[in-house]
């Protein structure tokens, strides 16, 4: 018994020992490895990767590129043709699915198919079409067009929707110019339907480009499609409300940190995130409210939390929250985009995106990191910590950028459509396209036309960003309309006075008089060159043509009967140097709302404020000559030419629309006003403003 017992104990002890060594032996290498790691951080924290010092090969042998004489059997031209035939449909790119040759002759022109009788078109799509027709890109001749837009309403492709257009496939195929969708642009806001909400439009779009809301990055064809924001039926066609930010508060925190109010989907696509929001809701500064009350039979599907959620939901007012929150959550809906996005943007409530895979609106040109917080649905629970970690300065700057982007690209259907067209135009004229700075800083891509110049310093807006100053001289442009009869005429005195200015580089006399040009010797001798240009059709607008002879940044625009002294001119220029993007000048006027007539009025009466500075004696940047001529719709310019008046008001409208700032009036001697009031402008009081601000 004893011996047996002894052996047994001996055996078990031996087994224990064997086990120990076995375990230790196995663990040893692992232990050693982890030890090495630790020793690296302990000993040489700066050199964890052994910086191998052996003589290693270069990754690129010096002769590799020479020996790889490529594609001897296929020429680059053939290769391009192959690409064009291979990359179709979902793999379309500008190179393979767009015919650039159509744009070469006439530039970037857009044709809209004539509307067919009996075709119903939704209000939103009608707005899109009329915007294009009113834009400077429009052409009614398909032979000149570079881009084609359907008159068939493709906005709502949800089969369950009343707006859904049936038989689109056959209708599109029967279009004579369809050409498999080449150079066509298709607008869409909604696609797919319950339960999977696919991004398919339900008809073959061929090689057409999509301007689509809620587009997912997997389906988005980069530099081919355009992601547009989801906008509602009520979104104004033109004009549009300004952003809600009226003044900055410092520190920039508002009553709430993060808010959301919207539907909750109990099941199906897009429900996960909204279902989980209640985890983050704290009822104090993070208020995320959902309701189950939507759809007909919500009662049937409701879950345990619905009643509590619904009660909480009704306690808060959405508008109040929107205006009083620093951040606004924008979770995906059934589709990726949601209305919350534009609402938050306008309200200067920094959007916090929770929509994985959404290609954000105009992502090709907008740097969204400067205006929104891009969250990840998978990290919902970290969102409060994340937004709280954002520094005050950053919040201020995000908030300002929301306002800039809203007003530059989103506030109206017109802006959304024009931005879409400009993006495509930039692709077509690749070497003459806008840089990201032009798109992402004030005044935005719609007002900064790259056709004017590719150099940022040629524009009035970027001096501060580039750290440079405008050219320190100006060009005077005198608009002459009456014949030269005597040597004491005001125009000659003006010429002499301006020429004496130390900042004057040259004087251009625009001869818009019916009488022939006076002989050269009749102009006074001046120290600066005087260029006389004879107006071709003697219209008002020609005074703002971007003449090539204007080489300076500043233009001093003058009427022929303006009376100015040299010091006044010098002073105007020094003031302008501080405000190069605005109109700086002498005679000021203002507008007012005439409540009796229910319309705007114009006045030259002496008032305490002004909103315009007349271009009869004003200094502004030459870029506005370009904008006036190439940006303004021809209907307005024609009206000015027919009236032979109001070109100065139009110029003020233009500059204020671009800068969002008033002009600057400078002190003058009294005699200027006397001549002004004496003769030239007869109908100055209660003049009717010619258009709404663009």
């Amino acid at each position, binding site marked *: 018994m004893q011996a047996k017992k002894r052996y047994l104990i001996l055996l078990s002890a031996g087994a224990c020992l064997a086990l120990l060594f076995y375990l230790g032996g196995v663990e040893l290498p692992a232990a050693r490895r982890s030890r090495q790691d630790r020793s690296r951080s302990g000993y040489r924290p700066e050199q964890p990767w052994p910086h191998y010092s052996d003589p290693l090969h270069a990754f690129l042998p010096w002769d*590799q*590129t020479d020996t790889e004489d490529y594609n001897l059997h296929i020429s680059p031209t053939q290769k391009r043709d192959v690409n064009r035939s291979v990359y179709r449909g979902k793999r379309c790119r500008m190179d393979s699915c767009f015919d650039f040759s159509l744009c070469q002759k006439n530039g970037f022109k857009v044709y809209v198919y004539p509307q067919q009788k009996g075709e119903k078109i939704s209000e939103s799509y009608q707005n899109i079409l009329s915007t294009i027709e009113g834009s400077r890109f429009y052409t009614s001749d398909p032979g000149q067009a570079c881009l084609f837009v359907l008159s068939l309403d493709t906005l709502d492709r949800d089969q369950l929707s009343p707006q859904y257009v049936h038989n689109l496939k056959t209708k599109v195929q029967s279009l004579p110019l369809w050409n498999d969708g080449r150079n066509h642009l298709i607008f869409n806001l909604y696609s797919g339907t319950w339960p999977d909400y696919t991004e398919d439009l339900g008809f073959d779009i061929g090689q057409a480009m999509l301007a689509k809301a809620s587009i997912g990055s997997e389906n988005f064809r980069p530099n081919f499609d355009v992601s547009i924001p989801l906008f509602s039926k009520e979104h104004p066609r033109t004009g549009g409300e300004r952003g809600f930010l009226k003044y900055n508060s410092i520190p920039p925190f508002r009553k709430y940190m993060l808010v959301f109010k919207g539907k909750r989907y109990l099941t199906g696509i897009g429900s996960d995130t909204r279902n989980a929001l209640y985890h983050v809701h704290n009822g104090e500064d993070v208020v995320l409210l959902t309701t189950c009350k939507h759809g007909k039979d919500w009662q049937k599907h409701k879950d345990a939390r619905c009643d509590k959620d619904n009660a909480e939901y009704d306690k808060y007012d959405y508008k109040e929250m929107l205006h009083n929150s620093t951040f606004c959550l924008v979770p995906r809906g059934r589709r990726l985009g949601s209305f919350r996005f534009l609402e938050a943007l306008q309200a200067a409530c920094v959007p916090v995106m929770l929509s994985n895979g959404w290609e954000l609106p105009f992502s090709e040109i907008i740097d969204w990191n400067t205006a929104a917080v891009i969250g990840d*649905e998978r990290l919902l629970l970290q969102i409060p910590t994340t937004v709280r970690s954002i520094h005050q300065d950053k919040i201020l700057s995000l908030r300002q950028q929301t306002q800039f982007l809203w007003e530059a690209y989103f506030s109206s259907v017109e802006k959304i459509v024009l931005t879409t067209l400009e993006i495509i135009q930039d692709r077509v004229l690749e070497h003459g396209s806008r840089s990201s700075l032009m798109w992402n800083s004030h005044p935005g891509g719609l007002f900064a036309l790259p056709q004017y110049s590719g150099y940022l310093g040629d524009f009035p807006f970027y001096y501060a960003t580039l750290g440079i100053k405008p050219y320190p001289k100006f060009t005077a442009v005198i608009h002459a309309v009456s014949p030269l009869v005597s040597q004491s005429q005001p125009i000659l005195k003006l010429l002499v006075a301006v020429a004496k200015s130390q900042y004057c580089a040259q004087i251009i006399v625009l001869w818009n008089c019916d009488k022939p040009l006076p002989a050269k010797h009749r102009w006074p001798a001046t120290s600066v060159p005087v260029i006389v240009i004879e107006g071709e059709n003697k219209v008002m607008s020609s005074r703002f043509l971007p003449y090539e002879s204007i080489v300076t940044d500043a233009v001093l625009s003058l009427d022929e009967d303006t009376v100015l002294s040299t010091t006044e001119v010098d002073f105007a220029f020094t003031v302008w140097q501080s405000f190069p993007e605005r109109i700086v000048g002498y005679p000021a006027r203002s507008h007012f709302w005439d409540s009796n007539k229910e319309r705007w009025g114009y006045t030259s009466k002496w008032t305490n404020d002004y909103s315009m500075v007349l271009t009869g004696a004003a200094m502004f940047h030459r870029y506005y000559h370009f904008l006036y001529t190439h940006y303004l719709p021809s209907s307005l310019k024609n009206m000015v030419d027919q009236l032979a008046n109001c070109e100065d008001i139009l110029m003020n409208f233009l500059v204020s629309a671009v800068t969002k700032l008033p002009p600057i009036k400078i002190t003058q001697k009294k005699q200027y006003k006397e001549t002004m009031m004496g003769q030239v402008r007869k109908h100055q009081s209660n003049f009717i403003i010619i258009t709404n601000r663009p």
Partner: protein
Amino acid sequence: MYASGKYSSRGPALIPRMKTKHRIYYIALFSVVLLGLIATGMFQFWPHSIESSAEWTLEKGSVHDAPLIRLPASSPIPERGDLSCRMHTCFDVYRCGYNPKNKIKVYIYALQRFVDEFGVPISSTGLSREYNDLLSAISDSDFYTDDVTRACLFIPSIDVLNQNSLRIRETAQALAMLPRWDKGMNHLLFNMLPGGPPDYNTALDVPRDRALLAGGGFSTWTYRQGYDVSIPVYSPLSADVQLPERQPGPRRYFILSSQTAIHREYRAELERLKEENGEALLLLDKCSNLSQGAASARKRCCKGQVYDYPQILQESSFCVVLRGARLGQAALSDVLQAGCVPVILADSYILPFSEVLDWKRASVVIPEEKLSEMYTILKSIPHRQVEEMQRQARWFWEAYFSSMKAIGLTTLQIINDRIYPYAARTYEQWNNPPVVKWSSVNSPLFLPLIPPRAPGFTAVVLTYDRIESLFRVITEISKVPSLAKLLIVWNNQNKSPPEESLWPKVGVPLKVVRTKENKLSNRFFPYDEIETEAVLAIDDDIIMLTSDELQFGYEYFNYLYTYKMPGDIKNWVDAHMNCEDIAMNFLVANITGKAPIKVTPRKKFKCPECTAIDGLSLDQTHMVERSECINKFASVFGTMPLKVVEHRADPVLYKDDFPEKLKSFPNIGSL
């Protein structure tokens, strides 16, 4: 079994009941077991610093010491890259998580030498010099972690920079063998020369599951936007050749073509352009008479004349970078280094780091089809823009192309910015060279917003003890319609402010803030009480006869004064009891890039009874001291931010011959 059960049930009585001989035996046995346990434990937990350092130096020595791994032929192969992969579908963000520093952690696998069954290496070159440089740079950076469990991104040490030197199948098998491979999740591969003959794919052909690819030469069809990173093809000349930076401006040649492997169709086109435009173009090619060898890569020839490459690139305004077999060309790097504006002709090419770099500012991209129009297109670009592009091109090279380190860290930063987008560098930060960053003006308040009258302004009055004068100022200011609040900064610690009943009655809230120290900077402290955007800062010895004469500073600048003003200046102001107003001007000018606006045309600002001794600003030494201030501030700011301005703002009808009662501000200007 029975016996042991019996004894064990008796438990504690076991040892005492045994014979002494046995007892010793058992004690010895247990001691051995115990010792074994302790030894194992010690081996596991002993600080190992000393013993392992030998291994470390050994490992550092040579790549040949890296462990050899034999790949079985049947070893699994990863799937080909999935074109629909995006960060939210193929990247595990939980591994990165919330991180107070907003920095991803990158782990680098230790070097292994992979061979197939027959002992043949999977790569003809093994670890290349460039890849070694790249991994060394990453391991030296903040991104690096040696803790594999905390890593968010994994970088294999398998070198796939040049596909030419790889055996595709075996490389893929090696990748799949990595211990953390997990379908390539969160793995990053660097490749600069993808594809191979005859059709040269534009992305690495090695199957790689979900791994991210930092590739040179992506086309728009292989690039997964927002997932892959397009990187440049590193040029070895970057390290070998020092090209001094040249001032932007016109060059001897207008267009230069220096690449050697240009398709004959394109070369013919270039020759034709040369015929049309003569000396403005220079077309270079291989030197046929030179002996082959690495040195010949540094020479180019044209009609028997030999030029040094890449030096010759500095002699041209524009340099052609045409696609070769691959879209990515190392020549792009040389061209940028030379400060020559690249003219890129490579259809569908995703330019290096295009996610963050604005190539429109540094290059001209022309479709291959339009090669014949190149001259006309380039001629239409304004000179100043060309100069700007030359500067930008050189800067791109310095910041993002110049070394493997620059390329690697830029790649990681791009991925980092995707994972922590709220802490990402802005597009402007990526694209603005430091020169511009310093001279330009960028404030968070950049919106052209005119504050409405409604919220009004807050008046901040700094006072020490001149109560009578102070009360007069208060009474005057309180007449201003847009005054929202009065804030009195009581800077006297020895004396309490007068009782509430003694203060003048005003229609707006009045608050007195008692400060801890008599400091002039207290006036610009961003008090919580200030709720308006506009702040009027005045001294107690200035009699504001009219409410119209205001000097507005913005609350934001108050805020900046405390939190943004270099600490140096603030201390200096407090010590000298002067110049706080000048400091404010420096700050505002520095932030806005604009001169202040003077409002009132009044001459007299002082109260009549304040004597010279009383009034701080009338001190004899005052002017001298204030000049001192200006010099000191200018040196701290590093520049002279003050802007000279020759105009001031007057009310529209100021001094006009117009009935006074109809003017908004009739009381301005009585001198």
